[in-house]
């Protein structure tokens, strides 16, 4: 960990992207590109973005399918047809997870860091089939104190800190960028 808070500048694609470090399946991954997405409810780790080959990902998926203690959930993409969604719903309810690319599996991610700031452990969903971006969703973001605003330079900044690790340096940055100060209540 090298930062005590998260500071990101919006890129030219109107995104907040950064690098994450996380431990999953007993392996430490660092410098993993992720996107902050306040419109996403569930943080989802795509094994394809971790460089795990498709064959190995399918082995891991099979293990998860057989493990009744691992939570499963379906997430649909915007381009999934109604027919696909109906078929997937039936297959999911029947426990036919293996052939469904839209099924994610609940795992505990250890020693999670975002932009060099320590987040801790987090329960996330892991998808073994999808490609695209790793999205950090509101299940994680809601555990942060988060501010987004535009500076006099025209840059848009996201300043955040896990609520349980709020610290003096973060407060200094809040004041510097947003002129915000903590309110101290007496009595």
């Amino acid at each position: 960990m090298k930062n005590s808070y998260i500071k990101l500048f919006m890129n030219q694609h109107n995104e907040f992207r950064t690098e994450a470090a996380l431990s999953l399946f007993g392996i430490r991954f660092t410098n993993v590109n992720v996107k902050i997405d306040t419109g996403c409810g569930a943080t989802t780790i795509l094994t394809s973005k971790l460089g795990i080959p498709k064959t190995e990902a399918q082995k891991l998926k099979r293990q998860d399918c057989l493990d009744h203690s691992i939570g499963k959930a379906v997430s649909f993409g915007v381009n999934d047809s109604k027919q696909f969604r109906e078929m997937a719903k039936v297959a999911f309810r029947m426990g036919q997870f293996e052939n469904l690319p839209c099924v994610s599996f609940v795992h505990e991610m250890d020693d999670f860091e975002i932009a060099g700031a320590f987040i801790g452990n987090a329960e996330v969903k892991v998808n073994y089939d999808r490609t695209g971006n790793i999205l950090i969703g509101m299940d994680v973001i809601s555990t942060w104190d988060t501010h987004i605003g535009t500076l006099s330079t025209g840059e848009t900044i996201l300043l955040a800190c896990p609520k349980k690790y709020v610290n003096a340096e973060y407060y200094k940055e809040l004041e510097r960028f947003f002129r915000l100060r903590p309110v101290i209540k007496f009595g």
Partner: protein
Amino acid sequence: MTNTITANNVSAYLNKVVKISDLSSIYDLWMILIRPNDSDLSDDEGILSFVGDEPNEESFSLYQKGNAVIPIYNDSIELESDMYYEE
């Protein structure tokens, strides 16, 4: 003179320590770096251990406890102004 790492010469850097930022202009190629836990490499460095079109068994054999794995794939879609990922 500093040598620039490009898609054409990146394989020559296999098993060498490289800066992750030096790979940011190489697109549509998987580059997997390893940072052994007991090494003194900085957060922006790793040993380039695999270069290829797709991850495979060889690259996955690098995924071991005791190593930090740095998977890098810069998608050229991100360069296109009229193409983007929906999610």
